[in-house]
Structures are given as C-alpha cells and as structure tokens.
C-alpha cells in the first residue's frame, strides 16, 4: 500500500531458543514518517523481533536492510550509531547514574577527553523537555525515581540519540494517562519530522490513536499488516489470538452483605507524609480498585498493608481483629492470609534464573513442607495444578522463568501467591504489559477468586480495568483517599477528575487516549 522504498526491511527473520521458536520467518517494512504498530499476544515474538533488529541477539536466519543497505548489528551500540534506537521492554536505565548521565550514556559531549557535564546537562534538560518530562531533575539518580518517571527518562534518552527509527517496546506500559498523552504529542511530532516509529503496545486505544499501520504477530509470524482504522478492535484481537473474541470483563455479581466483619479494614493508616489517614474496608468476595495518578501513595499503601513499611500509624484489622503486620512473613501467615503481587516482576516478583517450579514454590513452602522438609510429590502436584489452572505456557516447570514471555512471567507471579491460598490479595498493576487475551484470563481469575471468597485490592493504571473489574474504586491523591466510587459511579470521567483532584462537574483538560 506504500510505494516508496522502505527505510528498513526485514526478511525471513527466525530465532530459536532451544525448542522454542520465538520468531519464525518474520518480515517487516518500516517507512519514514509513519507510526507502525505491532500487536500480538504475549510470547508472539514482538520483543524478539526488536532485539534482532537492534543487535541484542543475532538471528538464526534472515536478513535486514537499512536504507537499502544490508545491516547486521553486532551490538546495540552499533544500531544506535546507525540511527536505530530502541526503548526496550525491560528498562535499560542505569540505576546508580544520574538522569543526565543516563540520557547521554552512549555519546556524551566531551571536552579534553572528559565529559563536559555542563553541556551534557543542557542537552539532557532539552531532551527531557522534548519528552514532556521537564519536571525530572537531571541530577537525580534514576533509582530514586518511580517507574513511570523512569520510562519518561528512557524516552528522553532515546530522543537525545537523534534516531531515524525509534522503536518503543511497550514503552508506555507504566505510564499514567497524562504522561501517555504527553508522549503521544512527542511521537506525533517526530512523525512529522520524518522519523519511522515502531510502536508495540497491548493497549488498543493507544494504537487506535497513534498508528498509521498495524502488523499483527502470532506464534512468531507476521499474520497480517493493514492500515490503521480498517479493522475493528474485535477483528484485530481475533487476529492476535486466533480465535473469537468475547466480552472483556466478566460480569460483576451483586454482592449481598452477610453481616460478617470486613476481611480487611484500615483505620486512619498513615506513613510519613506519603500516606495520610487511609480508612476503608474490604469484604470477602469484593474487588476494590485503587485509582489515581501514578505515585499518589498507592504503592505505599499496598506495601504498608503487606508489612514492608516501618513506623506506620493507624490500625489494620483482619476479620475485625486488630493485627500487627511487620513483615511479609507475618502478612502471609495463615491467620492473616495476605498476598501481594508486586509492581516490578523482574526485581520484586521473580527470581528470573530460577525454574518456574522454584518460583511458584517461593511463597507457599508451608503448603507442601512439614518442619521445613519439602514433600516433592505434593509440591509437584500443586505446581502442575497451578500451571494448568492459570494456563502458564511453559515447556516444563523446570525451565527458568526468564525464558517465558512477559505475560507468562506475570502469570507466574500471580500463581506463586495463589499457591498459598491467600484470603486477601493485593495487586499492584498486575496487567502491565500483558496482552488482551491474558488480561481477560486474569480478570476472570480475579472474579473467580472473589466469588470463592477472596478479598481483592487492585491498583491499576488502566482506567478500563478499574471500570470493568472493580466493585468499588478508591481514588488516591497525594497520599490520601480523595474519593470512593461505587457501582455505576465508576466512570472514566469520574476517575480522571478525582485523580486530578478537581470537581467532577467541571470539564477536565486531561485528554485520555
């Protein structure tokens, strides 16, 4: 459909990992001045394609051309030099360096062989502004920034490299709506400047807003490429998952009060100045959402409940009894029964090099060990059951989790806690970077768990999720619960306005994609 010579072309790219075919003779054309979206289920091979493109891994077969010349980048640095820049799904920022250092890591301005920090800082500031993240201090250490800010730094870093082709592999997955809109403006501007953009995301509405053309991948192959807007969401999703697509969210049952005390209740919970007088109750069978802009204390609230934070004020009641939770060990004990699905699966949820078996066991030793001695049979039985139940795609439970795709890794994190049969489940953005199909499975799973009597507290950066999944939503702002929404009150408009701490009846200026 586009006549002009493509800027970049890949032909017959394949990549095998042991028995797994990650990419199977895939091809792709990228044109300047266009945004090309790539869609596909978890494990479809999207990230693998990108890694081949920028030389992180070498293809088993196939060839790539850039501006008509054949290329094979040996290292990411070589790709960067040639103008192919990627923001990887796994962030590639260096935690102990400053934001400015990170942005200019590969080509800093130098004077007399030393880095010219003054100029570096100026360039970095400029790049941050271009990425719409002027609020980030260039001297701040990356490790001190929340995840959403880090992703903005990634984007600034990519921009500072003056790319010809910019690849974003789920670069917006941790961003809040307002950040996303800023990033989109930047991307659109880059498009007019003639850049070629490859955009990978699981968020359909982002793609609808942004893309000029879309390619759908399935099982390592490119299934279809079409101009954006020529297919409905449902059609696209069916292409992705290869079967018929049903309604995204399970029905919410009408919950009847049974007069029992709430499974979890907070009374005036506080922590430093990050959490202020949080009070709410969560009943068995209920799913409560936590909303609000990122970084308003949601993460801290979950951590406080899970016993990670010290010196918390206020009370936490489980089944009506005040309890003291001072560690995850206490939190998961039988009489409390908490579970926390953490935010960052790579560093907090998983031991990446260890097997699926070990990861699934880590939180639930008590279920198959007596006096600390593991009953192998019981362990295997439980694990096999859980892998079936959650439908984790792995050749064997003895494979390292690092070999699973992002979505399946996330399933392992959830399954790990389900192994322990928790009664109260705290989830910190569990569907980040997860494809629609898997998301649906997770939604159904959450509802099923709730129906079976679990109490669920779900933080999500995705408003659709809050609307579709939750019985009630607590919107947080600046460490406090700004508003509680229930039932039909949970609308995008209500969520956004309370997140921005403005009155519901005034129009909001935040545009959501």
């Amino acid at each position, binding site marked *: 459909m586009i006549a002009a010579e493509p800027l970049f072309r890949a032909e017959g790219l394949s990549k095998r990992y042991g028995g797994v075919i990650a990419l199977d003779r895939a091809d792709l054309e990228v044109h300047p001045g266009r945004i090309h979206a790539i869609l596909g289920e978890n494990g479809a091979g999207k990230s693998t394609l990108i890694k081949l493109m920028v030389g992180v891994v070498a293809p088993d077969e196939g060839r790539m051309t850039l501006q008509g010349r054949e290329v094979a980048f040996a290292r990411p640095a070589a790709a960067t030099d040639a103008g192919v820049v990627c923001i990887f799904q796994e962030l590639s920022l260096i935690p102990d360096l400053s934001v400015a250092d990170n942005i200019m890591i590969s080509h800093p301005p130098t004077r007399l062989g030393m880095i010219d920090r003054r100029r570096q800082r100026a360039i970095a500031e400029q790049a941050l502004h271009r990425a719409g993240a002027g609020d980030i201090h260039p001297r701040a250490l990356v490790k001190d920034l929340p995840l959403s800010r880090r992703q903005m730094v990634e984007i600034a870093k990519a921009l500072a490299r003056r790319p010809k082709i910019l690849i974003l592999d789920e670069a917006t997955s941790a961003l809040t709506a307002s950040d996303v809109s800023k990033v989109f403006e930047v991307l659109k501007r880059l498009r007019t400047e003639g850049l070629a953009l490859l955009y990978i995301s699981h968020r359909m509405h982002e793609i609808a807003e942004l893309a000029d053309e879309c390619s759908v991948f399935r099982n390592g192959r490119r299934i279809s490429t079409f101009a954006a807007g020529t297919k409905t969401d449902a059609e696209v999703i069916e292409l992705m998952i290869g079967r018929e697509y049903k309604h995204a969210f399970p029905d919410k049952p009408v919950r009847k009060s049974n007069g029992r005390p709430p499974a979890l209740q907070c009374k005036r919970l506080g922590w430093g100045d990050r959490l202020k007088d949080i009070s709410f109750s969560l009943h068995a069978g209920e799913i409560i959402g936590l909303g609000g802009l990122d970084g308003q204390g949601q993460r801290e609230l979950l951590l406080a409940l*899970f016993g990670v934070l010290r010196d918390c004020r206020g009370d936490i009641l489980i089944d009506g009894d005040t309890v003291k939770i001072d560690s995850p060990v206490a939190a998961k004990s039988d009489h409390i029964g908490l579970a926390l699905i953490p935010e960052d699966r790579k560093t907090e949820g998983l031991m*990446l*090099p260890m097997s699926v078996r070990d990861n699934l066991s880590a939180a639930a030793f008590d279920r198959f060990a007596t006096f600390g001695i*593991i009953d192998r049979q019981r362990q295997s039985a439980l694990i096999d059951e859980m892998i079936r139940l959650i439908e984790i795609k792995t050749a*064997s439970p*003895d*494979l390292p989790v690092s070999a699973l795709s992002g979505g399946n890794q996330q399933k392992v994190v959830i399954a790990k806690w389900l192994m322990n049969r928790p009664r109260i489940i705290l989830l910190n953005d569990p569907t980040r970077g997860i494809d629609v199909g898997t998301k649906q499975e997770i939604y159904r799973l959450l509802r099923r768990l709730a129906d079976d009597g679990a109490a669920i507290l779900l933080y999500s950066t995705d408003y659709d999720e809050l609307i579709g999944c939750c019985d009630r939503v607590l919107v947080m702002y600046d460490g406090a619960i700004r508003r509680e929404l229930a039932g039909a009150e949970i609308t995008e408009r209500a969520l956004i306005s309370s997140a921005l701490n403005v009155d519901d009846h005034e129009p909001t200026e935040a545009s959501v994609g």
Partner: protein
Amino acid sequence: MSDAMASQQAHRGIAMLRRIDPAVAASFGCILLLLLVGSLYSRSFLSPDYLLQQLKVASFLGVIATGMMLVILLGQIDLSVPWVVTTGAMMACAVASHGTAGVILAIPCGILCGAAIGFLNGIGVAYLRIPSMIITLATNAVAQGLMVAYTGGFSPQDSASKAMRYLATGNVVPGLPNAVLVWAIIGAAAIWLLSRTTFGRAIYAIGNRERAAYLSGIDTRRVTMLAFALSGALSAFGGVLLAGYASKAAQSMGDAYLLPSIAAVVLGGTHILGGRGSYLGTVAGVVLITLLQSILSVMQISEAGRQLIYGAVIILMLLIYGRQKV
C-alpha cells in the same frame, strides 16, 4: 490423560538433564586429567593409598567449603574462615583438657564457638546489612585477637582428644578414613538441605534476588543469619578435624583454607554472585584443589614455579568449563 503422562515424563527428563550440570561433569573430567598428568611424573599418584590420603586431606577442605558454599549461594562471602577454623580447633582442645566431661563436650563446644562467630557474621550481614566481605573480615580479626590473647594468657591445652583423633584419622569402615566418612555425611546432608528443605530453596531464592524472596514472605534475614552460623560451625568443625589430624591445635592452622575454599566452590561451578551452584560441583572443586596442591607440592620445582603453575592451571580449568554465559 496420556498427554498429561507424556508431558510429565518430558518434565522428568528435562529435570534429570538439568541436574547433570555440564560444569560439574567437566570438573570431574579435569580431576581425571590432573591425575593422568600427575601419573606421568610418578606412578604413585594413581595408587589407591595416595588417592585415599588425598580424599582424607580433601575432607577438611570439603567440610569448610561446604559452609563457604552456603554463604556464596546467598551471594555473600565468608572471609572469617581462617580464624574460625583456628578457634574451633583451639576451643575443642581446650575443653578436651577438662576431664571426662570435657572430652565428651570438646567437639560440640568447638563447633559451637564457630557457630557463635558465624552467628555474629550473620547478624552483621542480615540485620545490620554490613557487606559480608567486610564484616567477616572484621570478625576474623576479632577471632584472631581472642585466640592470641587466649594463647598468651591462659597457658592453653592444645592437644586433641582421642575422639578428635579418631574422627579425623581412624577407620570405622576398614580402609576408609573417618574424615572422608564425615565429609560424605556432611555432603549428603548439604545436598539434602539444599534441595529438599525450604531453608535450602530459600538460600537459592535469596541468592538470586533477595528483594523478591523477601516479598515472597521468606524470612530472608533469618535464613541469611543461619547460613552464616552454619558456615561458622562447619569451618570450626573443619578446625576440629584438622586438630584431630595434627593431634593438636595451633594458631595459624586456618590460614591455608580461605582462598582454597573460595576457589574450590567457584571451580565447582557455583556462581560467586549467588543463586546458582550444586554441591557435587563443590566436591569436584575441593578434590581438584587438593590434588593440584598435593601434586605440585611433591614435584621438585621451585616454590615460584609451583605458584605459577597453580594459578595457571586454575585459570585453564575455568576457561575449559567455568565460563559465564553472556
């Protein structure tokens, strides 16, 4: 149904394959190679007597390296080995001089002293979050200080008891030195501990990513502390065995065990940053180091040459099989 069966079998197959670590296999290969090269120099390197004696000597290092391995699996290191070994030996001998009760309590007391120092290391690492490399260095200095003061101040009794001697040099099973038996038992216990207990799995989990382990509700601090205590206890037990072997305890008897124990663990394929490694590998590493030292020791070359060859051979062996994956 049959599908499930087949997949189960496939799982087992993969599990088995994964258990035979190529690094472990290669390190056992290197042992054979070393013996062959040695036999070119003298046939006696292949004699059962010599090999058994090497196993006996290796068992001291083996016991100590077992503790070191636990700690390395955590991603930590224990530099207090030298003086914990000495403390174990000297305290056992000291207690042994106090009548019958002393003789009975000698070995447990020695081990307990080591465990106490290890415990201190563990508290420092786990609860005070001091890097293990430095806190163990400090406790090593303190243990040395205690032993020097003790030797100078209390006219120590440093002869090993009969039991200690028997444990290190006797034969319960004819032909097999007790020390080797002790190592075999400790080794079996270590394998069991590492693979079949929650404690062992927790060690691997912490070594891979402590933060994730903590958030999984593993009491990472207690596990770390216990691992260090165990390391201390095993070092001290190594000291007790050594004292039995030499029939006495002496000040600097632990000096020769620090670097070899680290080298043995790493030669055995355990990752120095923690989380990966098998005990069988450590066994191979210990035997390798012991054999290498022994063969070099009797070859009539200058000490300078010995050191050169020792270093070069370790590097060569690691290059053969110890390379990290990229």
